[in-house]
């Protein structure tokens, strides 16, 4: 049952479908994906050309799913895949890719290279080549209830604190409410203000909600490692809790990959549709705004810019919502270059941030963000992903840049109308 090369190859074999076959058939090696990649941009190292990162997957496809590849193998000209091939791919598939999805946007023949990286990681993880830090997180999350270990006590303390601060009672595991709120470990540990913020907003909007003590963790390291079994195991916890509590909606928090895991991958991991809906917190806030249930007063006079989390905007389709909200509360909202669909990654998504080996690459990649921020020179960067928040905060500090970073939900709560 341990990781082997053969298990990895088999996982890749399982992952290949019509889209993958059409992508590999279409690639003309034009190299345009290179410039879309933040790691190539900052290193100019051709090995980081996105399509090269999935070469192993291409070889499996050619060997096993094409007639000519089969004939080549029969003639003894095929290429045998070894454990070394997996080792060689580690730095390309995990360290120099945040699965930001920019390459998938620029490919002239329409290859979704990011999707293929996701599939590559299935093979890599099955072959035992996932980064140790991510494997550790998976173990902790499996044994406990979050990738940081057991956060039961922490969540209870943070909720209690938020209740006390806002004067709003927050009940755990309350059946029959509208929303089940799940959180990212990052939020629980670093940005717990978001709990109070949501409490205030939901109270004003008149919606009921709860947090499940059994399944409060939204993140899913199985998605980052790229292992569907692990991902399925983790997502099932939330699905079971939500269905047991009978909520209408599960609120995906300010976390990029959690949104991917819960909203888009989850139903496919468990092989059925949910009994509930999944909405991203920003989607929900924008909906409340449209319904007139979210009203603000006053505006922040700081120069504010917005960082689009890749998984939520480019790969998640939430683009206009945060801007509509931000315009309600920001007087001086300035976009950076490439903002929106083609925004650049914070430099540490997709598991790169947890991966010690990738530290230098991550720092190199941040330089692009740095230049963009310097050009705009904002007082504050607002985002809607706790991990982007965390990455930017640390990277700005490391680069001696004095810019505040804030979550959008928190910011909205700050300017809520105070009438009763």
């Amino acid at each position, binding site marked *: 049952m341990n990781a082997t090369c053969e298990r990895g190859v088999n996982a890749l074999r399982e992952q290949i479908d019509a*889209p993958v076959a059409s992508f590999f058939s*279409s690639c003309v090696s034009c190299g345009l994906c290179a410039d879309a990649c933040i790691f190539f941009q900052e290193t100019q190292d051709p090995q980081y050309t996105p399509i090269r990162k999935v070469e192993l997957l291409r070889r499996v496809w050619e060997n096993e799913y094409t007639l000519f590849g089969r004939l080549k193998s029969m003639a003894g000209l095929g290429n045998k895949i070894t454990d070394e091939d997996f080792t060689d791919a580690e730095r390309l598939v995990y360290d120099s890719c945040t699965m930001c999805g920019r390459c998938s946007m620029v490919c002239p023949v*329409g290859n979704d290279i990011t999707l293929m990286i996701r599939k590559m990681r299935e093979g890599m993880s099955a072959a035992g080549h996932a980064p140790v830090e991510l494997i550790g997180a998976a173990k902790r999350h499996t044994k406990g209830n979050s990738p940081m270990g057991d956060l039961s006590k922490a969540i209870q303390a943070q909720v209690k604190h938020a209740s006390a601060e806002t004067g709003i009672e927050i009940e755990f595991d309350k059946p029959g409410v509208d929303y089940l709120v799940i959180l990212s470990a990052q939020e629980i540990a670093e940005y717990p203000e978001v709990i109070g913020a949501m409490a205030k907003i939901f109270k004003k909007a008149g919606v009921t909600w709860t947090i499940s003590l059994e399944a409060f963790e939204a993140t899913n390291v199985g998605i980052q490692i790229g292992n569907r079994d692990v991902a399925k195991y983790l997502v099932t916890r939330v699905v079971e809790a939500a269905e047991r509590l009978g909520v209408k909606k599960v609120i995906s928090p300010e976390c990029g990959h959690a949104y991917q895991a819960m909203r888009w991958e989850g*139903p496919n991991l468990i092989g059925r549709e949910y009994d509930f809906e999944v909405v991203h917190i920003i989607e929900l806030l924008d909906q409340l705004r449209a319904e007139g249930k979210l009203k603000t007063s006053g505006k922040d006079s700081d120069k504010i810019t917005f960082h689009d989390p890749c998984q939520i905007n480019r790969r998640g389709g939430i683009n206009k919502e945060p801007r509509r909200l931000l315009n309600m509360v920001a007087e001086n909202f300035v976009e950076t270059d490439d903002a929106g669909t083609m925004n650049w990654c914070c430099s540490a998504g997709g598991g790169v941030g947890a991966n010690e080996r990738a530290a230098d690459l991550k720092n190199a990649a941040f330089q692009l963000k740095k230049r963009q921020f310097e050009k705009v020179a904002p007082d504050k960067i607002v985002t809607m992903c706790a991990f982007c928040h965390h990455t930017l905060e640390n990277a700005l500090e490391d680069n001696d840049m004095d810019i505040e970073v804030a979550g959008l939900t928190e910011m909205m709560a700050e300017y809520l109308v105070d009438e009763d």
Partner: protein
Amino acid sequence: MNNPNFDLLMFARGPLFDFALLVFVAGVLIRVVEILVLGRKKDFSKAKGKPVQQGIKTIFTRTLPRPGAIKANPITIVGGYVFHIGFFIAFLLFVPHIALIEELTGLSWPGVGRVIIESSTVLAVIAGLALLYTRWRDPVRRKLTTWVDYLVLVLSLLPLITGYVAVNKLFGDPTFMMALHILSVDILMIVFPFTKLMHAFTFAMARYYNGSIQGRKGAES
């Protein structure tokens, strides 16, 4: 007495074309069937956008580059456009070619004059040479490019060059050059299913899949 040039032309138009057609049609069919048969798992996530519509839309919209892309890769993008547009003008709007397509399929459309055909051909060849150059000089492309890619690019340029030489009688016996022109097309057809030339068919599938994956999420593509 035979005219060896004419005999070569008849060989290129006759048996070799038949063989090339067989390899081309059967090969492309195999490749396309091979892709489609792998299928796609049903997606259980609740669609936010319109996957099918966006998939179809992306087949067309992906034809245009993202803003700023041209500046970063001028040769590849401008060269790519000029090569493709020039190639297709020369291929699809030159009346002798239309006559060929009409013979094969019964479909016909009006052609354009020699000035347009020849300037397109010249531009396509220049663009093709530029693409060849950037493949050879640019580190990213150089690393991506296999010998088959170089071969395919050269083979794609040969029909343009031989056609131009034959029509303008630049050198060689015109009948011989015409034979070379058709031979070069035969060869292109034969290598087609085995190489990246397949993108001419599969790009639409790839763009569709990309568009539909993004479309389901309501994201741009």
